[in-house]
């Protein structure tokens, strides 16, 4: 699988990172090299091998349904780049097929 610049452009969009064509070119080369290296995993026979997501086997870690005090609106908004009343304000939202 050879990585193309168009694929990298799509990945940059999915990652919400703006990139110039020049940057995309460089990124295509670097990611390609890393993915080529990762292809060495194809040497292994993984037939019947289960994937490991959690290395320490644990299950059913839960808390009781008890309400705790919230941190307060001032702490919530203390780092807000654009505070408007008790809201975080952001530029106009345009729906691009994601969201819900």
């Amino acid at each position, binding site marked *: 699988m050879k990585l193309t610049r168009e694929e990298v452009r799509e*990945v940059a969009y999915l990652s*919400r990172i703006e*990139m110039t064509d020049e940057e995309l070119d460089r990124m295509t080369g670097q990611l390609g090299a*890393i993915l080529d290296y990762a292809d060495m*995993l194809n040497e*292994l026979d*993984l037939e019947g091998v289960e994937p490991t*997501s959690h290395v320490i086997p644990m299950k059913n870690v839960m808390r009781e349904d008890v309400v705790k005090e919230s941190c307060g609106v001032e702490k919530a908004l203390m780092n807000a780049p654009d505070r408007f009343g008790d809201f975080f304000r952001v*530029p106009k939202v345009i729906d691009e097929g994601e969201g819900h």
Partner: protein
Amino acid sequence: MELCTKTASELIGMLRAGEIDPIDIVDSTFKRINDKEPDVKAFIAVLEESARKRAEELKDADRSLPLYGIPVAVKDNMCMEGAQTTCGSKILTPFEPPYDATVVEKLKAAGAVIVGKTNMDEFAMGSSCEWSAHHPTRNPWDLERAPGGSSGGSAAAVAACECAMSLGSDTGGSIRQPASLCGVVGMKPTYGAVSRYGLVAFASSLDQIGPFARDVRDCAMLLDVICGHDPKDSTSIDREPPDHVAALDAGAAGMTVGMIKDLFGEGVEPGVRERVSAAAEVFEKMGAKIKEIEMPIVKYALPAYYLIAPAEASSNLARYDGVQYGMREDADDIVSMFRKTRRAGFGAEVKRRIMLGTYALSAGYYDAYYLRALKVRTLIVKEFEKAFAECDILMSPTSPSTAFKLNEKIDDPLAMYMMDICTIPVNLAGLPGMSIPCGLSDGLPVGLQLIGPTLGEQALLRAARAFEIGSGICGMMPGEKMD
């Protein structure tokens, strides 16, 4: 001898005897910091004011607290109220967390004096500290060289005696590799032994917080303070933690130490190979048995890691979008704001890993990359289990090389990634690992990596302490060389 050059256990003895007060240590520490920081640059933020205030408060506190009056530095990816947490990134400049990480709470409760937030590769992605958005940190043994990374600031601060001990985080070697390059002791505990609550996530299934110190006893002391179950971290192991200090002096006699042959081969500098091989002789001298073992699968750990860790990172770092905190680039619509903010806020290495991880998780590539890597992870776990069926602990070099020159590897991502070839398998298997100094090569420290089975920290520390005694290498300091 200045107070700042003493180990924590020495200082605690003097404090409890009433010979000194916490403020004396703080005075000595900040004098040292003021001396060394222009060269070493281990810190992103030096917290002198709050440290002095804390030392004053401690004067009348209970002197039997486990870290009473001890100056400790914290890596800048651990949240602490009242200070910035930048993770070495522009995108979190500014960000002041409204809460304390569990480890920070524990340090405070133990009577420690937090002296500053240490430098790191941006979001802990890197092996040299050069990817910090603030400035590179320099190795106290040779200011032309890198301290390693990503917890390079925490390692350098301890090596330069700017604090007695420090906390780092280790996702693929980020504690052990800089400990090796800076000639200090560093440990990555078992995954789940120390709470991750308040540690800014890089790769959640691999991240662990751990201690840096100048000797094994201090390392065990700090581990005792930070480990234990935390109900705020679902992956935290629920058990009564053992007393690690108490386990220290059991000696290495009767232990079987496995030498992982596959990690002594190609790419390892001869000087490093020599020092680490000599370490095996020390263990034998101390009554341990050395057993050579083969682990052919470990070479696949690096490529597997560079799919798993970026995949998790791509999701963990998605929240840096300029909405709630950190920097924001102005734009007319939300998508442009996201894209411009993340363009301006992230450095090259972080972007590379986000892109790599996004790709590995995206439709059509998930099975070929991410899922395959998780399966390889299973094989690595199994191979370690097999090794621990015949060995108590395992040994290898920590890093294939001693400290490298600044800028030497910055333009070659793969060469930089290779620096973690010995440490990464341990993270993938969730095992405890530590690096202890085992001598010098061309005047630069060499680190010995010891690996234990799951929750085998006591065995590790015991072997490490035995090595200190057997080798006479304990509390190595760049001292004279630097001045």
